[in-house]
C-alpha cells in the first residue's frame, strides 16, 4: 500500500498533472461561483476535453473541477446571498449575515479553510479505508434512504428559530411542491395546473437562487437611499486562534458527516451540508448566533459539503456506484478512459488509481491558497455601492436561473420564489426549510415507493435492517432534542425569574 501511495505521489507531482489540477481548480471555482452552474455541469463540460489527456491527468482535472465547483458555490453565497450550488445554501444563511456585519473576509476565510479541511480528510478516508467504507455503501438501500431523508428533514426543527409550527408548515408545503411533476412510480404528471413546463417538476436551483438572493435585494431597498448608495466593507481575511478552537470540533464532526453522506447513494453534498449545519446548531454553545452570522454554521456546512466529495468517490471506485451526480459523470469519464470501477480496479489499475487518490488530497491542499486568492479578488465586489450591487444581483440571478436549461420558465420560477421568499422572511417563515424539503422531497418519495415494493404491506419490516434503525434513532433524537432543550431553557428562565423576584 505504501509503495502504491509513493507511486501516486510521484505521478501527481509531475508538472503536467499539477498544471491541470491548478487549472481545474480555478475553472471549477469560477463555475461554482456562477449562479445556475453546478459541479455536475463543470465536470460534464470538461469530459470531452479530458479525452485528449492521459487517464490519470484527465481524472485529476475532473476531480479538481468537482472540488473547486463545490467550494466556489460558497463565494457568491457569502458575498451576495446567491448560493452558487445547492450545497452552499446553508453557507449563504450564515455567511451573508456576516457580510452584512462587515465580516465578509472572516466568513470567506472560514469557508476556504473548512472546505480544504473537509476535502483533505475525505481524500484521506478515500485513500486509507475506501474498501472498508464501501461495505457500508452496499448495505444502504431504499429503507435506509427513507430514514436518512427523514433524519435530514428533522433539521427543519433547528432551522425554525423558535417557531416550530411555521418551520414544519413550510417543510410540508415544500415537500408538497416537490411532488409537482411526474410521480416516481408511474410517471403520471401531478399538480401541473395545466402548465406544460411544470411536468418536469419545480427546478431546485432557480428556487434557491430566487429565495435567497431576491429578498436580500428587496431588503436593501428598505433602507434610506443614502444607505443604498453606500458600500459594505469586506473586512480582514483572518481567523483568530479562539475561532479556530471554537470551530475545530465542528469541522471534524462535519467532515465525518460529509464522508458518510457521500458514501450513501442519492445523498449528495447538499444533504450533507444541511444535516451538518443542523447538527452543529443543536450542539453549539452559541445557538443564538445561528441565522445571524455563526462561524460554526459556515464551518459545518463547508466541511460537510467538501467532505462529501471524497466520500462520494468511495462507492464509485470500489463498487462502481456513484454517490452523487458529479460522481456519476466521473464514472462515465472513467469508462471513457478504459478504467472499470469495481473491486478489481485497485489491483489492475494500481498506478492510475493511486495517482487519482493521492491527487485528490493534493487538490484539496491546493484549494487553500487558490481559494484564498480567489476570495481576496472576488471579495471586492461587495465594496460596490448597494445600488450597483442590487442591480448586478438581479442580473446574475436572472442569467443564472436561465442558464440551467435555457428556459424562461426557470427565471419565472426564480422570480416567484424570490417574491414569496421576501414575504416569508418578513413574517418569520424559515426559507431554509424550503431548500431542505425541495432537496430531500424527491429522494424521500422515491425511497418510500421502492421500500413499499420491497416489503409490500408489511412496511415495518424495514426496521429489521440495522442501518435503518440507526438512522431512525438519529431522526428521533434530532426531532426530540431541540424540543427537550427548548423546554429546559424555558424552565431555567422561569426559575431565574422566580429567583429574581
Amino acid at each position, binding site marked *: 500500500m505504501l509503495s502504491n501511495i509513493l507511486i501516486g505521489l510521484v505521478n501527481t507531482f509531475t508538472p503536467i498533472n499539477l498544471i491541470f489540477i491548478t487549472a481545474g481548480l480555478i475553472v471549477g471555482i469560477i463555475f461554482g461561483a456562477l449562479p445556475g452552474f453546478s459541479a455536475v455541469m463543470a465536470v460534464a463540460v470538461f469530459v470531452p476535453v479530458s479525452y485528449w489527456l492521459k487517464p490519470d491527468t484527465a481524472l485529476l482535472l475532473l476531480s479538481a473541477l468537482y472540488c473547486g465547483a463545490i467550494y466556489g458555490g460558497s463565494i457568491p453565497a457569502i458575498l451576495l446571498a446567491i448560493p452558487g450550488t445547492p450545497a452552499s445554501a446553508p453557507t449563504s444563511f450564515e455567511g451573508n449575515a456576516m457580510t452584512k456585519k462587515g465580516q465578509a473576509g472572516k466568513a470567506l476565510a472560514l469557508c476556504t479553510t473548512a472546505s480544504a479541511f473537509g476535502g483533505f480528510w475525505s481524500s484521506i478516508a478515500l485513500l486509507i479505508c475506501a474498501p472498508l467504507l464501501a461495505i457500508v455503501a452496499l448495505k444502504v438501500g431504499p429503507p435506509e434512504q427513507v430514514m436518512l431523508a427523514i433524519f435530514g428533514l428533522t433539521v427543519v426543527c433547528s432551522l425554525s428559530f423558535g417557531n416550530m409550527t411555521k418551520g414544519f408548515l413550510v417543510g410540508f408545503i415544500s415537500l408538497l411542491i416537490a411532488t409537482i411533476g411526474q410521480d416516481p412510480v408511474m410517471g403520471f404528471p*401531478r399538480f401541473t395546473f395545466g402548465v406544460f413546463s411544470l411536468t418536469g417538476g419545480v427546478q431546485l436551483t432557480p428556487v434557491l437562487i430566487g429565495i435567497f438572493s431576491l429578498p436580500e435585494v428587496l431588503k436593501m431597498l428598505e433602507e434610506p437611499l443614502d444607505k443604498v448608495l453606500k458600500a459594505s466593507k469586506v473586512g480582514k481575511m483572518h481567523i483568530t486562534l479562539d475561532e479556530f478552537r471554537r470551530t475545530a470540533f465542528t469541522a471534524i464532526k462535519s467532515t465525518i458527516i460529509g464522508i458518510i453522506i457521500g458514501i450513501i447513494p442519492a445523498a449528495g453534498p447538499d444533504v450533507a451540508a444541511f444535516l451538518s449545519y443542523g447538527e452543529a446548531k443543536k450542539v453549539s454553545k452559541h445557538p443564538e448566533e445561528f441565522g445571524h452570522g455563526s462561524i460554526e454554521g459556515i464551518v459545518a456546512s463547508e466541511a460537510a459539503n467538501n467532505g462529501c466529495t471524497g466520500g462520494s468517490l468511495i462507492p464509485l471506485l470500489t463498487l462502481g456506484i456513484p454517490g452523487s451526480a458529479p460522481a456519476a459523470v466521473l464514472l462515465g469519464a472513467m469508462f471513457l478512459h478504459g478504467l472499470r470501477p469495481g473491486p478489481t480496479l485497485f489491483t489492475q489499475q494500481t498506478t492510475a488509481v493511486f495517482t487519482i487518490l493521492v491527487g485528490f488530497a493534493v487538490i484539496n491542499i491546493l484549494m487553500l491558497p487558490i481559494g484564498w486568492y480567489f476570495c481576496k479578488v472576488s471579495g471586492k465586489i461587495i465594496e460596490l455601492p448597494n445600488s450597483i450591487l442590487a442591480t448586478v444581483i438581479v442580473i446574475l440571478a436572472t442569467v443564472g436561473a*436561465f442558464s440551467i436549461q435555457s428556459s424562461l420558465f426557470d427565471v419565472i420560477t426564480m422570480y416567484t420564489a424570490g417574491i414569496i421568499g421576501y414575504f416569508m422572511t418578513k413574517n418569520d417563515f424559515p426559507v431554509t426549510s424550503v431548500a431542505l424539503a425541495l432537496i430531500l422531497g424527491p429522494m424521500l418519495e422515491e425511497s418510500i415507493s421502492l421500500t413499499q415494493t420491497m416489503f409490500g404491506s408489511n412496511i415495518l419490516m424495514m426496521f429489521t435492517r440495522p442501518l435503518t434503525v440507526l438512522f431512525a434513532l438519529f431522526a428521533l433524537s434530532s426531532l426530540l432534542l431541540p424540543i427537550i432543550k427548548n423546554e429546559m431553557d424555558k424552565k431555567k428562565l422561569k426559575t431565574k425569574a422566580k429567583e429574581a423576584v
Partner: protein
Amino acid sequence: MKKNWDFISSIIIFIILGAFSLQLKNIPKEAKGYPTFMIVCSFILAVVLLFSSLKNNNKESKTEIIDKPIEYAKRVAIYAISIGLYIFFMEKIGFLLSTFIFMAGSLIYLKMKNKLVIVLLPLITTLAMYFFFGKFLTVMLPHGTWIQIYF
C-alpha cells in the same frame, strides 16, 4: 394600524392547499398517497397557525414592513414589479436590450448620480454577460421576438 399577517398567511395557505386538493381527483390512486399525506399535514399545521394568530399570542409574527415608512414599501413594490417587467420583456426584446434598459433604469431609480456609471456599467455588464454566458458557455440567451438584437 397593525394587521395580523399570520392570519393572512394562513388564508393564503388554505387557498394554495385547496388548489392542490382539487387537482388530487385527477391523479391515479397509486400516485396520490404521498402528496395527500403532505396536504393533510400542511392543512393541520395551517389550522394551528390560524388559531394561534387569532389568539394573537405571537406578537413577533407581525410583519416588519408595516412598521417601515410607506415610501420604502412603495420602493420595494416598484422594484419588484420592474424585475417582473424585465423578465417579461427579456423574451420580447431580447437579453441585450432588456438587460441594458433594466440596469440603467435601476441605477437611475436608486439615485446613482454618476452619469458615466449609469451608461457604462449597464453596457459593459450586459456585453460581458452576453459573451461569457452566451458565447463562451453557449447558453441560448433570448434574442427577442419583437426586436431582435444579437451578435
